[in-house]
Each structure stands twice: as structure tokens, then as C-alpha cells.
């Protein structure tokens, strides 16, 4: 199995902040909006360096999305940032009409996604956001796995013409994507060549899936491992060819089963190449307060649960 080195834990939101700052220096069209969470989203460096291109919108997310749409119509490339909960569910209709249906070039930067938001609890831990955004025509949905990939994804989002939902998180997690790796929207990363089972992971679950693959390899189970950072458009070719090869698929994500990566993959494979599947994801329930790692374990989103899902689908006890 190919080795992946954690160069030190870092939060993905800081990857977004770094990407945004980089864009600020290279592209005068990039502007940023934030709904009173500039520090939390690590947008302060951009705001300080480019005050004329930063728009503090206060706790008024609906208006922020509309302003972003208007800025995009006028030729700017706006990144509108807030927590994933307020960046999706709270403003769904604004995104639907003013962004997606109107084909405005708005980038929605959604931090603190998923259960790893931790102690704030279920009011803030959105687990439905990818599903909501996936359903919208014209929307691209990206869920990068670590700091370096989030930074690269931010830069790639600015170059993409059209709406993008960019999802990232709060806690420090292993940073293992090589610095400077080009981020290709819609293109899966093939992290390991294997033959017994396909594991498809996104976001914070990618590192857990790498750990799981290493454990499984020692037990003689060969894992074909895909990092799907783009939930929409899905890399159909990579998923289908891996499913054809292994005949079994396990999907892993920090999201509800409903609407998530697993359902997207299942929908694709049901039509193209049906195989048995398992879902490492949350099944129809809200989160709660706790430490991120504690919650990931309690809600079945860690290495151990991926290993168990693989063994179950292969039929090994």
C-alpha cells in the first residue's frame, strides 16, 4: 500500500483562508463576503489585505447570498462564507433562485460542516448540506479532505465558471495531500490500487479510510481506494471502473446517508454496474455535543467502522 504521511494536523478552514488570501493577491476579481464569522472561517487575512474587496454582511445570510449574486453579475468572483448550516439550509431558496437558476458565478464557502464541529451540538452540526446542494442544477459540490487539498480546491473554485459549494471543517486533521497538488474539479484521486473491495471516501473520512486500508492490507484484504473530493459532478469513470474491478463498494463520509456521497454513488452504480454497498455515514439522526474524535467514533465515522464495513461486505468475520 502506498504510504501517506501526515505532515501535521491542520484545520481545513485554514486551508480555505490560505487559498482565499492567495487568490486575493493574484486575481483582483476575487471578492469575499462573510456573515459575522470572519475569524472562524479564517477570512481575516483577506479582509485585512483587501478591505475594498471584503464585505462584512453581519448576521444576515440571505442578503449575503443575494449580494454575492449581484457582485457576480457585475463580473466579480465572490466567495460568500459562513457555517455550513447557515450557508445551505438557511438560504436554500436564495441559492436556488439567485445563484443556481440565475447561473451566477458565486462560491459558497461553508465551514464547520458535519459532526466534527463538536461542542456546539446539533443546531450547528449540519449533516444534510451536501444533499441539499447536490440537488440543485448547476451546482458543483466539493468536500476536500485536508488543509492542502482545501487550499487547492479554493483556488480551483475561483477558476471554475459557475456556482460552487465548497465544504470544509473546524478541527485539526492530518494534512497529507502533497503541497501544490493540482486540484481538478470532478476528478477522483486514486489513492490505492486494490482488488477485493472499493472504498470511496470524502472529506475528513479520507484519512480514516487510508488508515483502514493499511489495517486491511495487513489482514490480506486489498482495498481500491478513491478520494472523491467532488461529490458533483461525480467522477463516473473512476467509480464504475473500480466497482467493476472489486465488485463491492464501501462509501465513507461525514454526512447523513440521505443525500450524501454514498447515495450519489449508489444512484450511479444502480444504473451502470450494480454491486453490494455499505455506507459509513450517519443514518437519519441529529448530532450532539462532544469532542470531534469522540463524536466520529460514537456516530460510526472512524477507521474502525470502515474496517468493519469492509469485513461485513466481504463476508469475513
Amino acid at each position, binding site marked *: 500500500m502506498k504510504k501517506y504521511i501526515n505532515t501535521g494536523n491542520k484545520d481545513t478552514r485554514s486551508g480555505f483562508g490560505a487559498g482565499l488570501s492567495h487568490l486575493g493577491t493574484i486575481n483582483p476579481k476575487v471578492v469575499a463576503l462573510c456573515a459575522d464569522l470572519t475569524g472562524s472561517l479564517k477570512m481575516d487575512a483577506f479582509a485585512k489585505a483587501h478591505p475594498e474587496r471584503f464585505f462584512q454582511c*453581519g448576521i444576515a445570510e440571505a442578503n449575503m447570498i*443575494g*449580494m454575492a449574486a449581484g457582485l457576480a*453579475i*457585475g463580473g466579480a468572483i465572490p466567495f460568500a462564507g459562513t457555517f455550513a448550516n447557515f450557508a445551505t439550509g438557511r438560504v436554500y431558496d436564495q441559492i436556488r433562485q439567485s445563484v443556481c437558476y440565475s447561473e451566477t458565478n458565486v462560491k459558497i464557502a461553508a465551514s464547520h460542516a458535519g459532526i466534527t464541529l463538536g461542542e456546539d451540538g446539533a443546531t450547528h452540526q449540519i449533516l444534510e448540506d451536501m444533499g441539499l446542494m447536490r440537488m440543485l442544477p448547476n451546482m458543483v459540490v466539493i468536500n476536500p479532505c485536508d488543509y492542502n487539498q482545501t487550499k487547492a480546491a479554493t483556488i480551483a473554485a475561483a477558476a471554475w465558471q459557475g456556482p460552487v459549494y465548497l465544504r470544509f471543517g473546524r478541527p485539526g486533521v492530518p494534512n497529507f495531500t502533497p503541497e501544490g497538488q493540482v486540484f481538478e474539479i470532478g476528478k477522483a484521486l486514486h489513492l490505492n490500487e486494490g482488488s477485493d473491495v472499493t472504498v470511496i471516501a470524502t472529506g475528513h473520512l479520507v484519512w480514516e479510510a487510508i488508515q483502514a486500508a493499511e489495517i486491511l492490507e495487513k489482514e490480506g484484504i486489498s482495498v481500491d481506494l478513491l478520494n472523491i473530493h467532488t461529490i458533483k459532478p461525480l467522477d463516473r469513470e473512476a467509480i464504475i471502473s473500480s466497482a467493476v474491478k472489486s465488485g463491492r463498494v464501501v462509501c465513507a463520509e461525514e454526512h447523513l446517508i440521505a443525500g450524501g456521497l454514498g447515495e450519489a454513488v449508489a444512484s450511479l452504480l444502480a444504473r451502470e454496474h450494480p454491486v453490494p454497498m455499505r455506507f459509513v455515514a450517519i443514518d437519519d439522526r441529529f448530532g450532539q455535543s462532544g469532542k470531534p474524535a469522540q463524536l466520529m467514533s460514537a456516530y460510526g465515522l472512524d477507521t474502525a467502522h470502515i474496517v468493519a464495513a469492509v469485513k461485513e461486505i466481504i463476508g469475513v468475520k
Partner: protein
Amino acid sequence: MNDIHTYQKIASQVRRDILRMVTGAGSGHPGGSMSSADILTALYFKEMNVTPEGWNRAGNGHDLFFLSIGHISPLFYSVLARRGFFPISELGTFRAYGSRLQGHPSIDAALPGVHQASGSLGQGLSVAIGAALAKRLAGDNSRVFVLIGDGESQEGQIWEAAAAAVHHKVDNLIAMTDWNKQQIDGSTEEVQSLGDLTLKWNAFGWECIVADGHDFNSIFEAFDRANSLLGAGRPVMILFETEMGHGVDFMAGTHEWHGKSPSQEQCERGLAQLEETLGDY
């Protein structure tokens, strides 16, 4: 074109178009289209610096108009067609399958003159503020106009936007309210009273002008006054006092015709009250 009579003639034809489009489609929103007809006629035939030839969706180098109340699309389409943005014959396709004249304005349909989809209420003012900020960033001195409804002003997002425009000192924006005092279920007073809109916009920090939305002299005076207030760090709102269904006696002053199409016979009765000045489509 400086003769008031000229604009009255255009508005009369526009109202005929509205009646015929809504009747032909068998659905649509004549009431608010009629109440805003004089305002949009004044905008597109005199006030705004925009031509069909120079128009671009980004609004680069020309004045931009956003229709936040997308349901009055019959009016918007008629004015755009009469102004030469697309053939007037296309008005006959309103709401039909495959038409560029969707029930509510759409970008997907790529109709010249439309900058943004609208229909779900409350969103246009925010978008207009963003576009005004984009003009500021680009050093483009042209203006942004947006028309909202009084009923629409029950939406919370309108007041989020009201605060944002003041906070960001958006002073290249002229917002307008079609203050016709009616909405689908009844009068705004009955449905959910708005109070004194003048006081509200003033309290949010806007320059506020009240004008008669059916008197072209009053409309142009309001625009002159609004223009004199631009560039001074504050956004401008013109509250146009209007009458829903204005121009057709049985539609005027009632919410009944907010979103209902007339029968052929009713349409004929209405058309008899509106002079055909530019030729029906």
C-alpha cells in the same frame, strides 16, 4: 421624447400588451403589472441609460435594472420588447412551452434585458446592492435600479438588504417600491400591515422620496431628485404610490386581479379602455 403624452401613449400600449398576454396565456399577474406600468415606461424610455445594442448581462457601462417582483413579468417583457430588446411578436409566446418569456424572468431562457431570475420574493434588492458594489469596484459610474413590491416588503430579506445598503454606503443605487397597497389575499393592511413605509426606510438610513406612480411629471421629478442624492454615501428609495390594476376600471384598486387572467370578454372590455398607440403584437 420629452412630451408627457408620448410616455402615456407607450404606457397605454404596454397595458394592452399585458392584458392580451395574460389573457392569451390563461394565467399571469395583471394587477401589479398595471400598477408598475408607468414607472417602467419612464425608466426604459427616458430615465435609464441602456440600449438594446449596448446591453450586456453584467451591465458594464450602462444602467442596470433588476425586477425583484418577478410575477409582473408581462409588464417587464412588454416594455423590453417595445424598447427593442427582442421582437414584439414574441410577446404572444408568454408562458408557453419553449418560450423565452417564462412565467417569471429566467436567465436560463436567455432573454435580452434580463439580468437575473426573480419570482421567489425578497431577493432582488440584495442582488441589486451586490451589482452596485461591483460597479463601484469596477469604477463604472452608471447606476443600478431595482423595483420591489410593498407586499414583498413583508419578506425579512428586504430589511436585511436595507441595512446592508446603508452600512456599505451604496450610493449608486435607486430602489423603487410599487406601493399599490394590495397583495394576493387582500389589501396589505389586512394581510400584514406595513405601517408607514416612508418612516421605515428613513429609519434604516435611506434617502426616501414619495411620488405618484401614475403621473409622469411626478415620476420624472422623483428620478431627478433621486439623481441629485446619489454619490453622497446613502442609498435612495422612491416610494411610488400606485393603484393595482390601474388603467382598467374593473381591475383597479382591488387585489382580485393580482394573479388572475381575464376572460376573452373581460379582456375586450379592458382593451376598449386602452388606446392602441403603437400597434398590437
